[in-house]
């Protein structure tokens, strides 16, 4: 049967099992939108293309499926760029479909033309311009395969209008053949044997976990390994929810705003097992003093991540579940030696406990003013274990990482690599679309919230009951903090002087607005929001000049943390 390009696209999405997409119509995708009405695909109309991509991203992070976004050519396509770059930096599987002007017009500066394939080349795992309808089914098959396999990432398909209208026989290929793309899943057994030896020789091991563990759903293997060898575990922002923060071996986050004890443990350890992490500068601080006494084992599916920033003694390329599974198996075979290791490691765990006792993660409580950290702790207390938390970027994001006890994988969605303000609300929207019954909460600042606040309309329209907690300090708090600490309190352009009534904003969109100005009102507001059926903004007027502490100043080593005074 012959089908048009736009129908082929939709057939392919159905065959890929896609039931929800996020997008925004326009001239060069009008054919797709017309055909969409006849397909069993739910389309969520965001109010900005950037939000459509973040929503697809949140959907993907929460569900583990590929997220799909659709936008028109030109400005529609360029609006997706921040969303795509966000997903690329955090390795999130997305397929973003953009309309393009008809092929004869490409290159002529036609109306709403932009070279989106050129623009997105460095921020996609791969991208395509479809020039012939006969290639379309194969390209879509490849795009989904590339997006979800290996180290995941976003793939853009640019689809000119005349290709959407052209017809050809439709057949969805059942497999892909990409001779240049063959990710390594199975960890090399010799390397794993070497790793086993290194682990068994260690006395002060630390496991350092990144977002790869979330992407590969390796939480249970990770926990098995940590418990078997009794190694303390620290995670990056992206690895946060993969290891329960209340676990006795958890040291919380490391790096710039990590815990003192995690950073000291990394500095003093003699074996660092890096799992699906990429030694980002916010994690390592000064490279020269990062884990100076440690042998480093680095497990990652992407060879380019290994030895990019730090020296590595033993690289293992492969899927984390496979590698960790094999490693645990090898270690179990050496039960006696593992016993010795655990025995040897006892003083090490005591040292970590002592650091934790000396400098725990804490904040000064207050009676008259709401502390932002208190709000975050209360949200944890009052929400379900599997509640999905998203954040924007800034102080509130770091406080969430520090004070929210994440317990389940895929419950913390945040823009780690790119650090995109305005990510959290649309990501929450996407996560809620994936899991209509679960609690989804966007923890936000007043600055970030205003970067995509238009998505309140989408929440209300689609009855997505996302709860938004705005920690309102009337500042761009993180930059203000840096100005306070490193620029003599010269608050250049970080005071958002206009006080906004966020509860009225909520009401304007048909959502519910609640406000707390005193600590004793916090719990009531959160309870009421969680009981409310639709979307809610909770506005918390918080201490204005609270800082995120402790902190490793830029360029300093992890052992040079500035502690809260």
């Amino acid at each position: 049967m012959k089908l048009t390009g736009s129908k082929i696209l939709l057939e392919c999405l159905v065959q890929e099992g896609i039931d929800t997409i996020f997008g925004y119509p326009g001239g060069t995708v009008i054919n797709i939108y017309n055909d969409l009405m006849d397909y069993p695909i739910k389309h969520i109309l965001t109010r900005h293309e950037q939000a459509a991509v973040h929503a697809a991203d949140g959907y993907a992070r929460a569900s583990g499926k590929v997220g799909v976004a659709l936008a028109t050519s030109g400005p529609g396509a360029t609006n997706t760029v921040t969303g795509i770059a966000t997903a690329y930096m955090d390795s999130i599987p997305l397929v973003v479909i953009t309309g393009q002007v008809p092929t004869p017009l490409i290159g002529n500066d036609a109306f709403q033309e932009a070279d989106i394939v050129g623009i997105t080349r460095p921020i996609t795992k791969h991208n395509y311009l479809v020039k012939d309808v006969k290639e379309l089914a194969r390209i879509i098959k490849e795009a989904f395969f590339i997006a979800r396999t290996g180290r995941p990432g976003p793939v853009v398909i640019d689809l000119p209008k005349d290709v959407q209208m052209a017809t050809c026989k439709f057949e969805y290929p059942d497999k892909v053949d990409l001779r240049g793309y063959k990710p390594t899943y199975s960890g090399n057994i010799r390397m794993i044997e070497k790793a086993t030896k290194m682990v068994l020789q260690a006395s002060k091991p630390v496991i350092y976990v990144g977002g790869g563990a979330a992407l590969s759903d390796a939480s249970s293997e990770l926990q098995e390994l940590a418990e078997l060898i009794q190694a303390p575990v620290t995670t990056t922002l992206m690895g946060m929810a993969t290891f329960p923060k209340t676990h006795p071996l958890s040291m919380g986050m490391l790096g710039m705003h990590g815990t003192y004890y995690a950073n000291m443990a990394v500095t003093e350890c003699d074996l660092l097992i890096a799992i699906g992490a990429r030694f980002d500068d916010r994690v390592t601080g000064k490279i020269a003093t990062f884990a100076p006494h440690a042998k480093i084992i680095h497990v990652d599916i992407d060879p380019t991540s290994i030895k990019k920033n730090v020296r590595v003694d033993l690289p293992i390329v492969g899927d984390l579940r496979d590698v960790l599974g094999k490693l645990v198996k090898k270690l179990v075979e050496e039960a006696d030696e593992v016993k010795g290791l655990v025995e040897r490691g006892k003083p090490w765990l005591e040292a970590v406990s002592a650091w934790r006792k000396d400098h725990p993660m804490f904040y000064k409580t207050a009676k008259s003013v709401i502390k932002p950290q208190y709000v975050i702790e209360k949200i944890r207390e009052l929400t379900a274990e599997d509640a999905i938390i998203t954040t924007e970027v800034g102080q509130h994001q770091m406080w969430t990482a520090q004070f929210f006890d994440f317990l389940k994988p895929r419950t913390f969605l945040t823009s780690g690599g790119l650090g995109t303000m305005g990510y959290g609300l649309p990501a929450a929207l996407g996560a809620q679309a994936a899991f209509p019954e679960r609690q989804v909460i966007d923890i936000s600042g007043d600055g970030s919230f205003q970067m995509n606040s238009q998505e309140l309309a989408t929440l209300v329209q689609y009855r997505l009951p996302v709860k938004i907690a705005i920690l309102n300090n009337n500042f761009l708090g993180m930059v203000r903090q840096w100005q306070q600490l490193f620029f003599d309190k010269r608050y250049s352009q970080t005071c958002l002087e206009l006080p906004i009534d966020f509860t009225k904003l909520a009401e304007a969109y048909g959502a519910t607005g609640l406000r707390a100005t005193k600590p004793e009102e916090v719990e009531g507001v959160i309870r009421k929001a969680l009981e409310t059926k639709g979307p809610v903004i909770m506005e918390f007027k918080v201490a204005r000049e609270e800082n995120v502490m402790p902190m490793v100043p830029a360029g300093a080593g992890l052992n040079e943390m500035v502690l809260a005074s």
Partner: protein
Amino acid sequence: MRHTISVLVENEFGVLTRVAGLFSGRGFNIESLCVAPTLDPTISRMTIVTSGDDRILEQINKQLNKLISTIKVIDFTGTDYIEREMAVIKINAEEKVRAEVLRIADIFRAKVVDVTARSYILEITGAPSKINAIIELLRPIGIQELVRSGPVVLGRGTKAWKAV
């Protein structure tokens, strides 16, 4: 250190931009880049001359491999290989230097491919060092225009690199 890398890539739209963009985006250096289709018209072969320390070269290799369009990456450094470059040189050939130019061309086995009353065009192939040498000899005589192809390389011996 200087490295010569061959990259077998899908012969498709935009692949050169992917490779060039990778180098510029990550701050890697490209000294020269040659590209043309191979015997198999669906595959192109790029020869890239680059430089950097071991860590950078490891990243270049890995990053090139990571591109979906890349089929194979071969770093010839430390192996036995043939390196050839072509230069085409338009040189001053006034009466008093005409014979000298021809003598130099003869020594280097360069061919004269265009002649006018006041100029020659020489065509020369060889290792880049040989090209450098003839350029240095010709420079005082007056090179008017020069084009170099950048080197292409092939490993010595019977072993051949195939795409898959």
